[in-house]
């Protein structure tokens, strides 16, 4: 698989390590009322869809940036790649 890095262009997927579902960006608030339940769901439960999947890849042997890759789990086709930083900021995180 080739991942089109937003800054570096096409890179072999071997340069990356895989974390999983991009929902891992949305870490729950530890002070929330049902924080234990939320952390359980956050840590352990996954949608695991067959089809389009947004997921986190880390450019470990490259520029060490985190990417959100949209990839089809049935075909392995990658349709979009964003910097995870931009995705997180657009959701109001880490301003």
């Amino acid at each position, binding site marked *: 698989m080739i991942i089109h890095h937003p800054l570096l262009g096409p890179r072999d997927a071997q340069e990356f390590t895989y974390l999983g*579902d991009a929902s891992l960006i949305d870490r729950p608030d530890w002070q929330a009322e049902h924080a234990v339940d939320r952390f359980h769901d956050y840590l352990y439960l996954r*949608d695991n869809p067959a089809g389009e999947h947004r997921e986190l890849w880390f450019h470990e042997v490259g520029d060490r940036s985190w990417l959100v890759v949209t990839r089809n789990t049935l075909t392995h086709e990658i349709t979009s790649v964003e910097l995870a930083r931009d995705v997180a900021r657009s959701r109001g995180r880490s301003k």
Partner: protein
Amino acid sequence: MSESNGCAMRYSGFRVIKEALTGHRGWGPAWRDPEPQPSYDYVIIGGGGHGLATAYYLARHFGKKRIAVLEKGWIGGGNVGRNTTIIRSNYLLDGNEPFYEYSLKLWEGLEQELNYNAMVSQRGILNLYHNDAQRDAFVRRGNAMILSGADAELLSVEQIRARYPFLDFANARFPIRGGLAQHRGGTVRHDAVAWGYARGADSHGVDIIQNCEVTGFRIENGVCKGVETSRGYIGAGKVASCVAGSSSRVMALAGMRLPIESHVLQAFVSEGLKPLLPGVITFGAGHFYCSQSDKGGLVFGGDIDGYNSYAQRGNLPTVEDVCESGMALIPALGRARLLRMWGGVMDMSMDGSPIIDRTHVDGLYFNGGWCYGGFKATPASGMAYAHLLATDTPHETATAYRFDRFRRGLMIDEKGMGAQPNLH
């Protein structure tokens, strides 16, 4: 079920000779192809090894009637037809080892139980170690196995050399220092496991319904009443999902999210060779396992590709990695040509261990999360799931395989990797 369809036929050496002399005209189908009934007491979703074994034990050992196995495609077309056929019970943790040892004991009696030649071959499995720390870990593992009634023996380099003289003992980076052997481990003809259980279940009245995809659950007031399928609605007293890599997709139809990611695992087989590998052997410095099939092909595999996938095919970097590991262990492997390679979809759980449990929906049960170790578990998984379905209590060897272990901090994490499915 009528005699004329041949389903009740008993196989024997005498029968083989008789058929050989009479033009093989007496063989019938090994199981029926029934139309689905409007309702059953037990509906098992998934006609793989685990689903068929569940149906068999439910009918044979728990005396239950009105059982159906629903299969989207053809039985045995998923992971039971795609694995590397290894059986073993060399686990470490309390939650796992008694279960896998029970499974190995069931394998040992399987062919007599089913009257079916599943080619159970206890040729032994050998896990190599390459340094002192690994040796200590293997000694501990061996002791844990023995405590659970399994067999384990630590072998010296000389003992290994006598049986496997062609290994790269003096590998500059990963010299072989010894190994942990389980002599009762081995291989089984994987397709025959599905067919044997199917035939056994059918002969005890189980309806095996192929080309019947479950498209939804009918859940009323928190109780599962039945399943919607591509062949119409089927009512059920209890519904039992057993669909391996498709677990998340099926359980999503019941509104559940699972502690599972689906990943692709590749397997490989070389051209047929003369007898070379007498047993199953695994490399301790990388992820590589290899055995030789009775047809002569070297059957081997390694790591999962590492990203979510339902594609049943992987990518080349993993092929290269597996073959490099193989070459580091068995240099002669480089002279063999790769004949076939394929991928299967693994239901990788958050701690690398399976789940056999009830769900929050009454009458809906779940069996899955087998990662890439489900084949060896087939008999015990079927027995434990049947036990759960019949009695609503877990089998004594499967009490740890609960959904709530993640919430309660009771993970069964053999590799100590944490909640990261692609590392198990």
